[in-house]
C-alpha cells in the first residue's frame, strides 16, 4: 500500500482552507490504512520551507515542493505525476474547487487512473479507500471503489474538516520537474474574484441568510447589519437571487453553494429541501419566520416565529451591545 498525496493550493503565502481540510482528511485515512500522507505544493518564492513545514501540523509527513507557475492545472499535473511515479502513492486527494477538478482530471488522464469528483466522504474498506459521492441532486449516495494503481479523490468544497494533529514540522522535499512542453504555454494574466463576492461565504463562521420573507431587496440591509455586528457574511436563497435582490455568489442550496458555518441564521427562509441541502451541515441553525408551519423549523436548533423586521434590528443591537461590553 502506497501513501496518500494531497495537493495543497496557496495564495500570497497562505494555504487554502479546503486544502488544509484535505490534508487533515488524508492524514486520518493514512492512519487507518497504515500508510502516510504527503502534500505537494507548486509555486514561487513565497513558498518558503518554513511555511511548507507547517503542513505537518495537519498531519502531512513530507511536503513535495516544486517551482512552477501558480494557479494553473497542467504544471501541477506534471509535478504530481512525477511525485507519484517516484514515491508510489496509491491515492491522490484534493480539497475541491475548479483547479482541483482540473488537476484531478488531468492526472486521471495522464496516469490512466479512476477519478471521483464532488466527494463528500471517504472511508476505509478492506484495506482500500472508497469515495462517497452524492448524485441525483444529492438524493442518493454513490460509492466508488478504485481499480489499478492510483485512485483520485476530489472533495466537494468544505467536505473535509480541518484538524490539527499536533504533529511536528513536515519534511520538505524539493522536486525538480521537467515540465511538459504544453504546461507552460498558459500564463496567469489576472486573478479575478467571483462576481459579487466581496466575502467568501464558504469560509464564514457566521452566516445571516435572507429569503423571500424579507419582502423586498432592501430587506437585505437588515441582514447585512446583523452580519456586520456578528463579523459574519450574508447569504441568500435561490428565490431572492432569482428576483435580483442579491448576487448569485451568495446563493446557498442545491444549485448554489454548500456551507457549514458555526452559526446559520435564516431570516424569512421557508426551508425547502433545495435550500436545506446547501446548509444542513451547519453546526447551529437559527430560523426566523412568520409562518409557524415553515419546514425550516423542522431542522432548526432554535426557531423564532415572528416578524423579522422587528427581530433583526433588535438582535443587531443586542449583538453590538454584547460585543461592545
Amino acid at each position, binding site marked *: 500500500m502506497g501513501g496518500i498525496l494531497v495537493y495543497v493550493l496557496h495564495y500570497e503565502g497562505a494555504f487554502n482552507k479546503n486544502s488544509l481540510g484535505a490534508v487533515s482528511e488524508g492524514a486520518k485515512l493514512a492512519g487507518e490504512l497504515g500508510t502516510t500522507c504527503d502534500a505537494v505544493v507548486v509555486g514561487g518564492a513565497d513558498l518558503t520551507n518554513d511555511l511548507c513545514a507547517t503542513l505537518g501540523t495537519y498531519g502531512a509527513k513530507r511536503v513535495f515542493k516544486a517551482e512552477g507557475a501558480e494557479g494553473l492545472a497542467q504544471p501541477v499535473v506534471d509535478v504530481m505525476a512525477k511525485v507519484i511515479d517516484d514515491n508510489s502513492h496509491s491515492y491522490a486527494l484534493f480539497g475541491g474547487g475548479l483547479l482541483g477538478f482540473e488537476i484531478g482530471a488531468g492526472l486521471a488522464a495522464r496516469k490512466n487512473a479512476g477519478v471521483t469528483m464532488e466527494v463528500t466522504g471517504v472511508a476505509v474498506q478492506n484495506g482500500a479507500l472508497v469515495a462517497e459521492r452524492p448524485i*441525483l*441532486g444529492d438524493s442518493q449516495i454513490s460509492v466508488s471503489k478504485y481499480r489499478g494503481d492510483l485512485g483520485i479523490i476530489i472533495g466537494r468544497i468544505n467536505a473535509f474538516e480541518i484538524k490539527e494533529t499536533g504533529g511536528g514540522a513536515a519534511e520538505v522535499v524539493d522536486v525538480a520537474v521537467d515540465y511538459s512542453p504544453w504546461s507552460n504555454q498558459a500564463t496567469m494574466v489576472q486573478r479575478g474574484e467571483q462576481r459579487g463576492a466581496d466575502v467568501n461565504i464558504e469560509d464564514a463562521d457566521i452566516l445571516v441568510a435572507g429569503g423571500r420573507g424579507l419582502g423586498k431587496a432592501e430587506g437585505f440591509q437588515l441582514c447585512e447589519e446583523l452580519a456586520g455586528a456578528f463579523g459574519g457574511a450574508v447569504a441568500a436563497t435561490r428565490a431572492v437571487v432569482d428576483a435580483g435582490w442579491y448576487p448569485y455568489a451568495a446563493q446557498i442550496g442545491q444549485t448554489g453553494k454548500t456551507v457549514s458555518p458555526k452559526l446559520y441564521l435564516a431570516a424569512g427562509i421557508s426551508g425547502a429541501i433545495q435550500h436545506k441541502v446547501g446548509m444542513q451541515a451547519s453546526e447551529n441553525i437559527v430560523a426566523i419566520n412568520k409562518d409557524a408551519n415553515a*419546514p425550516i423549523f423542522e431542522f432548526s436548533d432554535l426557531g423564532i416565529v415572528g416578524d423579522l423586521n422587528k427581530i433583526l434590528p433588535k438582535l443587531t443591537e443586542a449583538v453590538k451591545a454584547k460585543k461592545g461590553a
Partner: protein
Amino acid sequence: MSATSTGIGKSNGKVVPAAYPPPVDSPQEFVKRGLDSEDELIEVGVAIVGGGTAGLACANRLLQLLADDPDLMERLGEVPVAVIEKAKTCGGHNLSGAVMRPGPLQELFPELTREDWRKEGFAFGEVTKEAVYMTPTSKLGVRIPVPPPFKNHGNEIVSVSALARYQQRQAEEGGAYVLTETSATQLIVEEGRVVGVRSGDKGRGKDGEPLGNFEPGTDIKAKAVVLAEGCWGHLTGAAIREFDLADGREPQVWELGVKEVWKVPRPLDRLIHTVGPWPAKISGKYGQVGGTWLYPMKDERTGDDLVSIGFVIGLEYADATTSPHDLLQTFKLHPLVRKILAGGERVAWGAKALPGGGYWSMPKLSMPGAVIVGDAGGMVDTAALKGVHHCINSGKLAAEAIYRGLKNGETSFEPYEYMIEDSLTGRELYEVRNLRQPFQKGFLKGGPLVNLAIATRGKLPPGRLAWHRNDEKPMFIGNTYKRYPRPDGRYTFDKLSSVFITGNATRDDAPNHIRVQKHVPREVAETWKWMCPAGVYEIPDDAPETGPVDVIVNYTNCVQCGAITAKGGRLTTPEGGDGPLYQIT
C-alpha cells in the same frame, strides 16, 4: 391587443385562460426557413426528435431493417439514424402508469421473452388479478365489476423511463447516434417540406445573452424527420400549424398525471383502478373528472416490492384550486391506499401531461418529409388508459414507412397514415372515439353516455362528438384546495421536495423556457399555481385580492410536464440536459 380592454376573456363574468395567450409567434420562432450552408450543418439519414418509447421504437425498427439492407444504410451516410433527446439520458423525461399491452413490444423485439424484460429492469410482472373501485368519499371504497376497457389481465407493468433506457442501448448497438442533452428548437422547412431540425443553443444567460460556455445550435439536415416529442410536442405544434395538420379535426384536450413509486413491505397482489369521484369533486360545476391507479411492481433485480400510484385528471376542470399533485396526496389518505403503502417509503415522483382527445383529435400524421408518432400524435386511448403499446406500434410502423419511402427515393411518407389506420392503434382508438367526450358535461351527466359507448363497443353514440378546448373553460376560485393535507414529509409531500427527488437540477441562470403572460387575472394565476405539480408559478403574498396579479415564474423547478400548454401558456424546449432525471417512472 389587451384581453381586458376588448372584453374577451370573460365568460358569464368568469375568466377564460385562452384570453391570455402566451407571447409566442410559432411560425416565426419555431420554424426556420431554409438550411444553413453545407459546412455548418450536420447531415443525417433519419432524424428522430425525442428518445422516448415511440421515437426509440422507430429507431429500433429502422436499424433492424437497415441491418439487412447495407445498400440503403450506406446511402444514409455516416449517421444513418440520429435520435435527439433533451434529457440527460433517454427516459429521463418519460413517465407513465404504466400497464402495457404486450403485443407491440413483443413484435419489436421478438427474441426477448417477458422474463427477459423483467431481467432488463423495465418490466415488473404480469397482471393476474385486478379490481376497480368507486370512491364516493374519503373513507368509502365500493368494489365494482371491471368495466371492459379497464380489463388488464395478461398485460405487463412497465416503467417507460427504464424501457427507454433499454431501447436506447439497443438503438446504439444497432448504429444509432443518440444525442442526449440536446433539444430540438426549430423545424427546418424548405420549399414546403421538412428538411431537418435545429438543435438548441447552450450556455445562454437569463436574458438570452451568451455566457462564457456558449455553444450555438446546429442545423441537422435529414432525409426524413420523425416527431416523437411526446406531450406537449414543441416542434409537433409548430408542424401542425405550418402544414395545417389539425384541419377538420377536433381540438386536442389534455390530462395531467402525477405519479409516485413506493417501496412497500408487503407485495400488492392486484392491479387497482379507482374511478372517483373522490378525491375530485362530484359536482359538474368543478368539471373534475379524474381517476387513480395502484400497480404492483416486482423488481426482479433487487427483489424489492414496489407500487406505482398515480392520479390523472382531465385539464377541462373549472376550479382554479385544482392541484393534481395535492389530489394525489389526498388520495393517499384513503384507507384503501394506506393499507397498501403503510410502512413503505416513497422512492420516486413525477408528473406528465398526456393527450386525451383520442381519435377525433389526432392530427394528420404525415407531412412532406416528416411523420408524427406516439403521444405527439395523440395516440392515447384514455378509456382503457393505454398509450405505451400505441407508441411502440406507431414508431415501428413509421420506421417501416420511412424505410420503404427512402428505398424508393420518395419524400412523402403518407402511407404511414394508412398503416396506422389499419393497425391495432387505428382500430382501438376508433372504437373509443366518442367515449370520453360526454364527461365534459360532468361525471354524473356524462356517465350514461359513456356507459352506452362501452356497452356498444363504440357503435353508439353515433357520429362525432366534439371536444371543447381546455383553455376556453371559464375558471373560478373554488374550494377544492381545502381537501389537501398538510404534507408531513413522510407519507404526504409538498411539491418542492417532490421535484427534488426527480434529480431536477436546471441551471439557475438559464433562459426562461415557459411562455406565459405575467400580468393576468387572479383566476388564471391561481389556476397555474395550483395546477403546476412542480411549484413553478407563484403569486406574491402582497398581490391584490381581486384584479390582475403579477405571476412569479420559477422556471428552474419545471419538470416539463407540459400541462401549462393546455391552460393558457406554452412550454418550449429548455436547454438540453435541463429538467428531471426520471429513473423508474
